[in-house]
Protein backbone atom coordinates (compact mmCIF):
# COMPACT_ATOMS: atom_id res chain seq x y z
CA UNK A 1 0.00 0.00 0.00
CA UNK A 2 1.11 3.52 -0.76
CA UNK A 3 0.59 6.10 1.97
CA UNK A 4 0.88 9.73 0.96
CA UNK A 5 0.85 12.51 3.52
CA UNK A 6 0.14 16.20 2.97
CA UNK A 7 0.84 18.45 5.95
CA UNK A 8 -0.36 22.06 6.15
CA UNK A 9 0.15 23.61 9.58
CA UNK A 10 -2.06 21.70 12.01
CA UNK A 11 -3.96 19.98 9.24
CA UNK A 12 -2.88 16.67 7.73
CA UNK A 13 -4.32 14.76 4.85
CA UNK A 14 -3.48 11.09 4.33
CA UNK A 15 -4.12 9.37 1.02
CA UNK A 16 -4.28 5.59 1.06
CA UNK A 17 -3.65 3.70 -2.14
CA UNK A 18 -3.99 -0.09 -2.15
CA UNK A 19 -5.23 -2.88 0.05
CA UNK A 20 -5.40 -1.98 3.76
CA UNK A 21 -4.74 -5.52 4.96
CA UNK A 22 -3.02 -6.47 8.20
CA UNK A 23 0.49 -5.93 6.80
CA UNK A 24 -0.40 -2.53 5.34
CA UNK A 25 -2.13 -1.63 8.61
CA UNK A 26 1.14 -2.14 10.51
CA UNK A 27 2.80 0.33 8.16
CA UNK A 28 -0.15 2.75 8.38
CA UNK A 29 -0.16 2.55 12.21
CA UNK A 30 3.52 3.48 12.29
CA UNK A 31 2.85 6.43 9.99
CA UNK A 32 -0.08 7.53 12.17
CA UNK A 33 2.15 7.60 15.25
CA UNK A 34 4.07 10.47 13.69
CA UNK A 35 0.93 12.17 12.35
CA UNK A 36 -1.19 12.12 15.52
CA UNK A 37 0.61 14.84 17.45
CA UNK A 38 -1.16 16.72 20.28
CA UNK A 39 -1.45 19.88 18.17
CA UNK A 40 -3.06 18.21 15.16
CA UNK A 41 -6.51 19.76 14.67
CA UNK A 42 -7.70 18.47 11.31
CA UNK A 43 -7.09 15.02 9.94
CA UNK A 44 -8.45 13.81 6.62
CA UNK A 45 -8.05 10.20 5.50
CA UNK A 46 -8.78 9.82 1.80
CA UNK A 47 -9.74 6.26 0.89
CA UNK A 48 -10.69 6.72 -2.74
CA UNK A 49 -8.07 4.20 -3.85
CA UNK A 50 -8.48 1.84 -0.92
CA UNK A 51 -11.29 -0.64 -1.49
CA UNK A 52 -10.31 -3.18 1.13
CA UNK A 53 -9.99 -2.78 4.89
CA UNK A 54 -9.40 -5.50 7.50
CA UNK A 55 -10.18 -5.09 11.20
CA UNK A 56 -6.59 -3.99 11.79
CA UNK A 57 -7.28 -0.95 9.59
CA UNK A 58 -10.54 -0.29 11.36
CA UNK A 59 -8.68 -0.20 14.66
CA UNK A 60 -6.35 2.53 13.37
CA UNK A 61 -9.33 4.68 12.34
CA UNK A 62 -10.93 4.23 15.79
CA UNK A 63 -7.65 5.19 17.48
CA UNK A 64 -7.30 8.23 15.21
CA UNK A 65 -10.82 9.34 16.15
CA UNK A 66 -9.98 8.92 19.85
CA UNK A 67 -6.87 11.07 19.44
CA UNK A 68 -8.70 13.75 17.45
CA UNK A 69 -11.43 13.84 20.13
CA UNK A 70 -8.74 14.31 22.78
CA UNK A 71 -7.20 17.06 20.63
CA UNK A 72 -10.62 18.68 20.22
CA UNK A 73 -10.03 18.35 16.51
CA UNK A 74 -11.75 16.60 13.64
CA UNK A 75 -11.30 13.45 11.60
CA UNK A 76 -12.93 13.24 8.19
CA UNK A 77 -12.97 10.05 6.12
CA UNK A 78 -13.18 11.08 2.50
CA UNK A 79 -14.24 9.19 -0.63
CA UNK A 80 -14.83 5.91 1.20
CA UNK A 81 -15.70 3.16 -1.34
CA UNK A 82 -18.84 1.07 -0.85
CA UNK A 83 -17.13 -2.14 0.26
CA UNK A 84 -15.16 -0.30 2.95
CA UNK A 85 -18.26 1.65 4.02
CA UNK A 86 -19.92 -1.69 4.58
CA UNK A 87 -17.22 -2.61 7.09
CA UNK A 88 -17.84 0.64 8.99
CA UNK A 89 -21.57 -0.11 8.84
CA UNK A 90 -21.44 -3.67 10.12
CA UNK A 91 -19.21 -2.71 13.06
CA UNK A 92 -21.49 0.13 14.17
CA UNK A 93 -18.97 2.84 13.30
CA UNK A 94 -20.80 4.47 10.38
CA UNK A 95 -22.79 6.74 12.71
CA UNK A 96 -19.82 7.58 14.94
CA UNK A 97 -17.43 8.81 12.27
CA UNK A 98 -17.57 11.70 9.80
CA UNK A 99 -17.67 10.92 6.09
CA UNK A 100 -17.60 13.21 3.10
Amino acid sequence: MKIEKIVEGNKTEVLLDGRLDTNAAAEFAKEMETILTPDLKELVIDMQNCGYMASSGLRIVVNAQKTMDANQGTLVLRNVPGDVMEVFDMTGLADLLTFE
Partner: protein
Amino acid sequence: MADTLEKQLDIEADLDNLDLVLDTIEEILSGAGAGMKIIKACQLSVEELFVNIANYGYADAKEKPCSINIQAKCDDTKGNARIELRDKGLKFDPFAKEDPDITLKIKDRGVGGMGIYMTKNLMDSWEYKYDNENIVILEKSWNL
Protein backbone atom coordinates in the same frame (compact mmCIF):
# COMPACT_ATOMS: atom_id res chain seq x y z
CA MET B 1 -21.56 -25.01 -18.00
CA ALA B 2 -20.43 -26.31 -14.62
CA ASP B 3 -16.99 -25.77 -13.32
CA THR B 4 -14.94 -26.48 -10.21
CA LEU B 5 -11.74 -24.70 -9.34
CA GLU B 6 -9.61 -25.66 -6.39
CA LYS B 7 -6.29 -24.83 -4.86
CA GLN B 8 -4.65 -25.90 -1.65
CA LEU B 9 -2.01 -23.83 0.10
CA ASP B 10 0.20 -25.67 2.59
CA ILE B 11 2.05 -22.80 4.16
CA GLU B 12 3.43 -21.35 7.35
CA ALA B 13 0.96 -19.25 9.32
CA ASP B 14 3.10 -16.18 8.81
CA LEU B 15 2.01 -12.69 7.78
CA ASP B 16 4.59 -12.88 4.98
CA ASN B 17 2.18 -15.33 3.33
CA LEU B 18 -0.87 -13.09 3.62
CA ASP B 19 -0.50 -11.69 0.09
CA LEU B 20 -0.29 -15.22 -1.31
CA VAL B 21 -3.47 -16.21 0.55
CA LEU B 22 -5.42 -13.14 -0.57
CA ASP B 23 -4.21 -13.37 -4.17
CA THR B 24 -5.05 -17.08 -4.38
CA ILE B 25 -8.60 -16.45 -3.17
CA GLU B 26 -9.02 -13.83 -5.88
CA GLU B 27 -7.60 -16.17 -8.54
CA ILE B 28 -9.89 -19.10 -7.70
CA LEU B 29 -13.06 -17.13 -7.04
CA SER B 30 -12.77 -14.86 -10.06
CA GLY B 31 -12.27 -18.01 -12.15
CA ALA B 32 -15.68 -19.14 -10.94
CA GLY B 33 -17.30 -15.83 -11.85
CA ALA B 34 -17.40 -14.18 -8.42
CA GLY B 35 -17.45 -10.37 -8.46
CA MET B 36 -15.08 -8.20 -6.44
CA LYS B 37 -17.60 -7.74 -3.64
CA ILE B 38 -17.79 -11.51 -3.04
CA ILE B 39 -14.04 -11.89 -3.47
CA LYS B 40 -13.30 -9.16 -0.91
CA ALA B 41 -15.79 -10.66 1.55
CA CYS B 42 -13.95 -13.99 1.35
CA GLN B 43 -10.52 -12.35 1.50
CA LEU B 44 -11.46 -10.34 4.61
CA SER B 45 -12.93 -13.38 6.34
CA VAL B 46 -9.93 -15.59 5.66
CA GLU B 47 -7.50 -12.78 6.53
CA GLU B 48 -9.02 -12.33 9.98
CA LEU B 49 -8.77 -16.06 10.70
CA PHE B 50 -5.29 -16.46 9.19
CA VAL B 51 -3.92 -13.46 11.10
CA ASN B 52 -5.27 -14.90 14.35
CA ILE B 53 -3.54 -18.22 13.65
CA ALA B 54 -0.31 -16.42 12.72
CA ASN B 55 -0.33 -14.14 15.76
CA TYR B 56 -1.76 -16.36 18.50
CA GLY B 57 -2.32 -19.91 17.28
CA TYR B 58 1.17 -21.22 17.78
CA ALA B 59 2.55 -19.08 20.60
CA ASP B 60 6.34 -19.32 20.09
CA ALA B 61 6.43 -22.53 18.06
CA LYS B 62 9.10 -22.71 15.37
CA GLU B 63 6.88 -24.30 12.77
CA LYS B 64 3.38 -23.04 12.19
CA PRO B 65 1.76 -25.26 9.56
CA CYS B 66 -1.49 -24.03 8.07
CA SER B 67 -3.45 -25.47 5.15
CA ILE B 68 -5.97 -23.42 3.28
CA ASN B 69 -8.14 -25.19 0.75
CA ILE B 70 -10.05 -22.90 -1.57
CA GLN B 71 -12.75 -24.40 -3.74
CA ALA B 72 -15.16 -22.58 -6.02
CA LYS B 73 -17.94 -24.10 -8.07
CA CYS B 74 -20.26 -22.49 -10.54
CA ASP B 75 -22.92 -23.31 -13.08
CA ASP B 76 -24.86 -21.03 -15.41
CA THR B 77 -26.78 -19.23 -12.68
CA LYS B 78 -24.82 -19.37 -9.43
CA GLY B 79 -21.48 -19.89 -7.79
CA ASN B 80 -20.31 -21.12 -4.42
CA ALA B 81 -17.04 -20.92 -2.53
CA ARG B 82 -15.94 -23.26 0.22
CA ILE B 83 -12.79 -22.36 2.09
CA GLU B 84 -11.27 -24.62 4.71
CA LEU B 85 -8.48 -23.58 7.07
CA ARG B 86 -6.59 -26.14 9.12
CA ASP B 87 -3.90 -25.50 11.71
CA LYS B 88 -2.18 -27.57 14.36
CA GLY B 89 -1.86 -24.74 16.85
CA LEU B 90 -3.59 -24.31 20.18
CA LYS B 91 -7.13 -25.65 20.20
CA PHE B 92 -9.26 -22.60 19.62
CA ASP B 93 -12.78 -22.00 18.38
CA PRO B 94 -12.74 -18.48 16.88
CA PHE B 95 -16.53 -18.33 16.76
CA ALA B 96 -17.15 -19.24 20.40
CA LYS B 97 -16.56 -15.73 21.71
CA GLU B 98 -19.56 -13.51 22.26
CA ASP B 99 -20.09 -10.90 19.55
CA PRO B 100 -18.70 -7.45 20.38
CA ASP B 101 -21.07 -4.66 21.42
CA ILE B 102 -21.27 -2.57 18.25
CA THR B 103 -23.32 0.14 19.96
CA LEU B 104 -20.34 1.32 22.04
CA LYS B 105 -19.17 4.91 21.65
CA ILE B 106 -15.71 5.56 20.24
CA LYS B 107 -14.17 6.23 23.65
CA ASP B 108 -15.41 2.90 25.01
CA ARG B 109 -14.15 0.80 22.12
CA GLY B 110 -11.44 -1.75 22.83
CA VAL B 111 -8.77 -2.94 20.44
CA GLY B 112 -10.11 -6.29 19.30
CA GLY B 113 -13.00 -8.57 18.62
CA MET B 114 -14.22 -7.03 15.36
CA GLY B 115 -12.40 -9.30 12.92
CA ILE B 116 -14.28 -12.51 13.58
CA TYR B 117 -17.51 -10.55 13.90
CA MET B 118 -16.85 -9.25 10.38
CA THR B 119 -16.30 -12.81 9.17
CA LYS B 120 -19.67 -13.86 10.62
CA ASN B 121 -21.33 -10.92 8.87
CA LEU B 122 -19.67 -11.52 5.52
CA MET B 123 -20.03 -15.29 5.16
CA ASP B 124 -23.19 -17.32 4.49
CA SER B 125 -21.99 -19.96 6.94
CA TRP B 126 -19.06 -20.77 9.16
CA GLU B 127 -18.18 -23.85 11.11
CA TYR B 128 -15.48 -24.88 13.56
CA LYS B 129 -14.46 -28.38 14.53
CA TYR B 130 -11.47 -30.00 16.15
CA ASP B 131 -9.96 -33.23 14.92
CA ASN B 132 -6.35 -33.22 16.14
CA GLU B 133 -6.23 -29.82 14.48
CA ASN B 134 -8.35 -26.71 14.25
CA ILE B 135 -10.67 -26.82 11.24
CA VAL B 136 -12.69 -23.86 10.05
CA ILE B 137 -15.02 -24.06 7.06
CA LEU B 138 -16.44 -20.94 5.44
CA GLU B 139 -19.02 -20.83 2.67
CA LYS B 140 -20.29 -18.06 0.45
CA SER B 141 -22.48 -18.20 -2.63
CA TRP B 142 -23.37 -15.75 -5.36
CA ASN B 143 -25.66 -15.41 -8.35
CA LEU B 144 -24.37 -15.14 -11.88
